[in-house]
């Protein structure tokens, strides 16, 4: 019953697959952002597991930078969504097929 590195990698892969299904399936842009958060978190789990089982701190450093990128992505993405919602009053992905603004 020893938990090894492969357990964590398999878990990370399952979470990544769930997030990827969400990205492909969602039509509302807010819920598509939720799915991207799941993707980033699954990669963080893999980084922390590799960092633990190899006795190296580089994985945790990359996890920190991934968290910073996720936070800034949320800020910029929600700002853009607010601008879009003011103009078109919906945030459906199908309405964004043309880039005429």
């Amino acid at each position, binding site marked *: 019953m020893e938990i090894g590195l492969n357990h964590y990698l398999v878990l990370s892969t399952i979470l990544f697959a*769930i997030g990827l299904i969400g990205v492909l*399936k969602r039509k509302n842009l807010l819920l598509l952002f939720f*799915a991207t958060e799941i993707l980033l978190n699954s990669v963080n789990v893999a980084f922390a*597991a590799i960092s633990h089982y190899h006795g190296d*701190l580089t994985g945790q450093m990359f996890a*920190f930078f991934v968290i910073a990128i996720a936070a*800034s992505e949320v800020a910029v993405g929600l700002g853009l969504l607010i601008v879009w919602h003011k103009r078109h009053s919906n945030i459906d992905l199908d309405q964004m097929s043309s880039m005429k603004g």
Partner: protein
Amino acid sequence: MFEAIAFYLFAFLTITMFYITVTTSQALHALTALAAGMIFISAFFFILGADFLGAVQIVVYSGAVMALYAFGMMFFDTTRELKEKQGNKYIIFGLSVLAAVLVVLIFAAPMVSDNITALYPMTEGVGNTQEVGMVLFTKYLVPFEVAAIMLLVAMISGIVLASKQMDVSQTLSKDEPIQESKKGVTS
């Protein structure tokens, strides 16, 4: 033994929560399930001995990111039922499995092929937070500062995008109530 029990328990909970997030049709359920999943993800970090990373995960994700998403949910009025994209399910499933297998190969290929040695090995007798501080402020100082600049840019862009009438100065405008009250005091 306890590590195995904790791993399987939190793995089950995390997968369940994220599955609810992806599949539910209510935006509120998706938000709460995502917040719970973030907390359960931090449990893995605590199991793996990355205490500081777990604390940062709780603070950043379930504090800041979830608050932003809650604001977005209230702003966008997503209380109604969500319509899903009507695509071919087999294509979506096949692409997801393919991409997941690709990720496993990316992670597993260097481990199988080569003996990895620790670049910055963990020092004995020092807590995780101190280790993180020592490595982050010596070896990763420049990426740390670049990340700080990136967060500043994101903050400014968020303010500029979400606010209105940024070209008109609010403090220099003529009809300001503070100046009127000041006039009333002097006269």
